[in-house]
């Protein structure tokens, strides 16, 4: 098949997804996709499209997540998965180096860098934009992290257009869209919803084109495109939540005092769930794992959270000692100070921090309070 045909994409029924999984596995990728794990949909390894969450959707709200039956036999009608792709590029924990006593001196033993080629099927636009945020921190600065860079290069993404955003989603107001930016992915998948769904697959990278070329399938037709854009339009319309970028930034920059956050801090448990599920959060700590005899120690990098009091510890006390101070930091970082640090947005509007907050704190509602107060003054 010619490259030109490949670049025009592929269309087909469920068998197109089958072919996609088979082709990716044949190319050596571990394939991951949304999969039901207990009471939630998670990003898990799959080797068969039957493992996708057919006719299963999630109902998300502040502090609420429930799986439900869906009327259509489709696989991608769900909202953001509990954990994003961040885990694949920045694992919760990894060894960096071991230092070992050799007489009076110390020897340095760097840990090996592992990067397993991994293909994610069903990457959402918000999570792909969040990867840009991770890239800015770990890849594009003055000190690229070789572990991150290797894993990022080993990550192949099949984006999916969202046709049924969760009630907690607000990506459009954050400059994102239900249709992912093709530049953020290798392939772009559209699921046309019906009793017998149809799939469209388009390539936006050389790697993506290679995969597509190895796959059978029909050409994408004009009616396919019309249906796709109709679906996109309806999904955008369905997303009623919004947190406008400029207004939120201005309001949070103005909210400097911890007093402004005392009410929400009363409810906040400082449990770190929000920073754990947020796809853009990047904070880390490095801890020691000494050997039993004290002759060596391994330095392990672990996910960290600004909600931990130790996070800002300095001579005998935490800088952000109060929960209000820590909540202020989290919200101002996401919505106000991030762009100055990294030149992009700290919140992609995935809504996870709201869904997974055990206290049911609604991030958008809290930020909106600051916007309203700003408008009143």
């Amino acid at each position, binding site marked *: 098949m010619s490259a030109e045909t490949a670049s025009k994409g592929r269309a087909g029924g469920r068998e197109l997804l089958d072919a996609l999984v088979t082709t990716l596995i044949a190319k050596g990728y571990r394939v991951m996709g949304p999969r039901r794990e207990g009471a939630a949909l998670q990003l898990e390894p799959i080797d068969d499209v039957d493992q996708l969450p057919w006719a299963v959707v999630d109902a998300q709200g502040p502090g609420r997540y429930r799986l439900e039956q869906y009327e259509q036999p489709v696989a991608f009608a769900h909202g953001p998965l509990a954990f994003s792709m961040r885990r694949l590029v920045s694992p919760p924990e990894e060894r*960096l*180096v071991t*230092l070992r*006593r050799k007489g*009076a*001196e*110390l*020897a*340095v033993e*760097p840990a090996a*860098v592992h990067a397993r080629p991994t293909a994610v099927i069903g990457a959402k636009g918000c999570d792909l934009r969040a990867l840009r945020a991770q890239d800015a*921190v*770990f890849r594009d*600065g*003055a*000190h*690229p*992290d*070789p572990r991150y*860079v290797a894993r990022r290069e080993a990550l192949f993404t099949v984006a999916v257009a969202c046709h049924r955003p969760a009630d907690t989603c607000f990506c459009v107001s954050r400059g994102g869209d239900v249709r992912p930016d093709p530049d953020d992915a290798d392939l772009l998948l559209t699921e046309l919803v019906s009793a017998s769904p149809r799939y469209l697959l388009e390539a936006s990278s050389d790697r993506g084109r290679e995969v597509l070329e190895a796959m059978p399938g029909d050409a994408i037709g004009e009616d396919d495109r019309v249906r796709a854009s109709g679906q996109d339009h309806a999904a955008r319309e369905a997303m009623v939540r919004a947190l406008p970028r400029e207004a939120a930034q201005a309001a949070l920059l103005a909210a*400097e*005092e*911890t007093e402004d956050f005392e009410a929400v801090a009363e409810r906040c448990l400082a449990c770190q769930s929000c920073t754990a599920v947020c796809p853009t959060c*990047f*904070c*880390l*700590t*490095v*801890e*020691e794992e*000494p050997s039993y005899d*004290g002759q*060596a*120690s391994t*330095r392990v*990098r672990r996910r*960290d959270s*600004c909600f931990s009091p130790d*996070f*800002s*510890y*300095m*001579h005998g006390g935490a*800088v*952000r*000692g*109060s929960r209000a*101070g820590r909540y*202020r*930091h989290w919200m*101002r*970082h996401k919505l*106000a*100070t*991030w762009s*100055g*640090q990294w030149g992009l947005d700290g919140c992609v509007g995935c809504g996870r921090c709201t869904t997974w907050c055990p206290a049911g704190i609604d991030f958008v509602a809290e930020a909106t309070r600051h916007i309203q107060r700003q408008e009143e003054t």
Partner: protein
Amino acid sequence: MTHDPFIPTPHRIVEKRQETLDTVTLVVEPETPFVFAPGQFNMLYALGRGEVPISISGDPGEPSRLVHTLRAVGLVTDALAALEVGASLVVRGPFGSSWPVEEAKGHDVLIVAGGIGLAPLRSTILHILRHREDYGRLAILYGARTDHDLCFADDLHEWGGRFDVEVRVTVDRGSPAWRGRQGVVTAVIDKTDFDPARTVAMVCGPEVMMRHTARALRAAGMKDEQVYLTLERNMKCGIGQCGHCQLGGELICRDGPVYPYPRVAPLMRIREL
């Protein structure tokens, strides 16, 4: 593969000086010249305890010697201060911004330091002395808690003996044997002869001391834009990736630790930021 910023380099300690009861200077001689700018810091590692940011206190013009001066105040610094000649000093760096030694060319330079805060400024002083003709007058105002807490005593004597440096040392509380000046370092600013219009001030010490100093310098006729200072926060990486050193939008390890005062003055006023 790209260089791994988390892999440190061990250097053998060749010299150790006890500055005060709890402060030591450690000197290593790296195999390849260690190039740095005055004001930059390194992450120093103690086996099984962790890493902390420590400024480079040596002469940038002598990259064959890498010098740190540190005060033992806790878990990691206690272990570092206990290292002896022959042991490894494990180093990652250099990181961060530097004092404005280029911008200060042709100007008078006023150094105001408190306690261990003289460490990062010592590298600047040595740089200025090495390029003495590029700068105008140089005044060093140094304050410590007591006369037993004065670091770099030999240097201070040497600088004080030169005709082209003005050195003023003061302690908060002198011991009975102390015959020098007593009082806070900000009080010495008034007594120092400098032309506010053509001076660049570089300040390092505890945050309250720096705030008072900035106020005193303004009272003496200097503009905030002529004042530079360094900030301190918890640091786990030194390279803008761990998030610990944030002060508002600033990543102090990457954007600082040396800042023009106006950039951080509003942030220093906000509680718990």
